[in-house]
């Protein structure tokens, strides 16, 4: 069956991941199974193609942006299991009274902000917003209408008048949105 790298998940690794992300050992094992099944080449890391092989992700208008979020840290184009889990940890539901390192409301908002912020300069410009709008609507809405939508959105959210949306302005704009619900995935045990 070919040369397979060691894919054993040791206790220390599980403990480390549990410490950093807050997933239970059971969930970590299930997600590890998922990780290895996506890893077609059996190399212990995932590439962008591995992600986009998932049909539901490939047809998602923001699919590329979501995949990009996994590859953000570091400069290689492969993701190992720890990085994989760290990104998924953002979507754990918030538990009161627990230490929410990666899945606090602010962390979730930061993740959403990064979807818009294409060049990582901590600001959403009009062009970036336009780009995301393009991804989401395709060719179904005309350029002028999209531009007007983008301008209106920035106008509403911009508070310091620099024609860009900073992270704080973004958080303020989403104050009334139930971010916890929209950015949390219900994990079964």
């Amino acid at each position, binding site marked *: 069956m070919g040369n397979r790298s060691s894919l054993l998940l040791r206790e220390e690794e599980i403990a480390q991941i549990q410490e950093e992300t807050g997933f239970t050992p059971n969930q970590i094992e299930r997600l590890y199974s998922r990780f290895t099944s996506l890893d077609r080449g059996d190399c212990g890391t995932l590439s962008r193609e591995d992600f986009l092989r998932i049909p*539901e992700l490939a047809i998602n208008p923001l699919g590329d942006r979501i995949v990009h979020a996994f590859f953000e840290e570091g400069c290689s184009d492969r993701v190992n299991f720890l990085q994989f889990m760290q990104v998924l940890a953002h979507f754990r539901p918030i538990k009161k009274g627990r230490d929410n390192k990666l899945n606090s409301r602010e962390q979730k908002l930061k993740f959403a902000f990064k979807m818009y912020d294409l060049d990582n300069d901590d600001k959403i410009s009009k062009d970036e917003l336009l780009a995301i709008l393009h991804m989401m609507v395709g060719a179904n809405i005309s350029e002028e209408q999209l531009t007007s939508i983008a301008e209106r959105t920035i106008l509403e959210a911009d508070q310091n008048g620099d024609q860009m949306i900073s992270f704080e302005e973004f958080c303020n704009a989403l104050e009334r949105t139930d*971010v916890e619900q929209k950015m949390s995935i219900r994990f079964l045990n």
Partner: protein
Amino acid sequence: MALIWSVVSVSCSILVMPFLMFLLAIIFLASIGKSLGVRRLYVKMLLKIFEYGRENIEIAKKDRHTSCDNSENEDEDDVEGQRDKEKGSSNVTCHYLNHSNHMLHKMDRKLKNGVLANNSTSVISREDLILVPDPEQNYTSASTVNSEGDHTAVIHNFPRRRSFETLKREFELSDCLNFVKAGVEAIIEDQVTHRFEAEELKSWNLLTRTNLHYEFISWRLSFIWMVGFLMRYCFLLPVRVLICFIGTVWIVMAMLLIGLVPDGHMKRWLHKHAYLITFRILARSLSAIITVHNKQYMPSGGVCVANHTSPIDIVMLSTENCFSLIGQRHGGFLGILQRALARASPHIWFERSEVKDREAVAKRLRQHVSDPRNPPILIFPEGTCINNTSVMQFKKGSFEVGSVIYPVAIKYDPKFGDAFWNSSRYSMMQYLYLMMTSWAIVCDVWYLPPMYQQEGESAIDFANRVKSAIARQGGLVDLMWDGQLKRMKAKPEWKEKQQEEFSKRLKIDTKKQE
């Protein structure tokens, strides 16, 4: 040395006669289509052993690991607990998977079973947006398939069934969150990718290939496994291979001879019986236990469609009824069978290149069906093997022939042997080897009442209707995804459909100042 040799030869000669009688009995029974019920008894016994094994695993787990309901419970979800009370509680899955060491020990034939098959072993609960390739279908289809038990797929799309106008709202920054969440959920668990791998079992069936964590559980279990191993490899495998060989020789010889008979009633009669005998012998070589339901709907002509799990489906269906087959020309063992069959009766085997030429194949189909003396033609509209947990998109070609469709649903019981052929992992020979070293192949076959294309119904809608009927009967998940996704990438048009759906809901400010 000579003594040992003489002992061996004596015992062989003693055993040879009963062995030959045993073989002959099997062949004879196959010819007349009767069964002594030995295989069913065998299966009942196996079930008891599995049950014992399951309890054993549970007990061993309790001794070694802390209980599953520890303080780390993220979400108290009682959904899992309600399911599968009779097949073993979710505790078993919990314990069975709760090995913290020794993951994924690599054995040669280990199937990558780490994927999540049906809902009861899901990691997440998906309540919101699930993207599908053709969102329009969700509005027009009358039923989102609902069956009790684990095999429900309620495909949600954007907020359900309200008129668009009331839904339209202006763009907000939070609109991307739906897509993001749907995307990450798909990364964790999606509807499609695990359909191309073997189904995950709820509890171990004493085959190494399905043991996720190759780990010592208990002495008793290992002993049972050893006994099972010896029986399967040292007794069952040689017998099965021998029977299969006899079956192949029979089909080649018989079809050759029948091919020489001039066309006519005699030839068809001979062919039908030779065909049935062949497949009954081959079914026995796999220790197949087939339960047929609703025999009254068995077709004697026309087009018969079924869900596809592996070429063995043909064997399962052909023990009762004679079919004409249509499919891609293969080499190797399958090729031998194909060529043998083609000598004595009309089958349609086409080359890969011809697949693209749908017209030619459709024409031959129509010709075949228009002659009432021809046997019914068996088609697998999915076009590829799926792992028997779901039914994927039916290609419309077979539904355009304009004939009556006789649907058949086939469901295998994976506890005794997983019949799915993962063609990217195993060749035909490897697959047969796996089949013949499993416990048995147990399946249910349901013949459904014939379905007719209605006035104004397109071939695609008709195909979907037949697909849901089959899925409902077999307890399978009804998916609209294309089975070719096994090999190909998602089409860009599907993404465009999603974009279209989203833009439909955007209220655009039409007041423009120029």
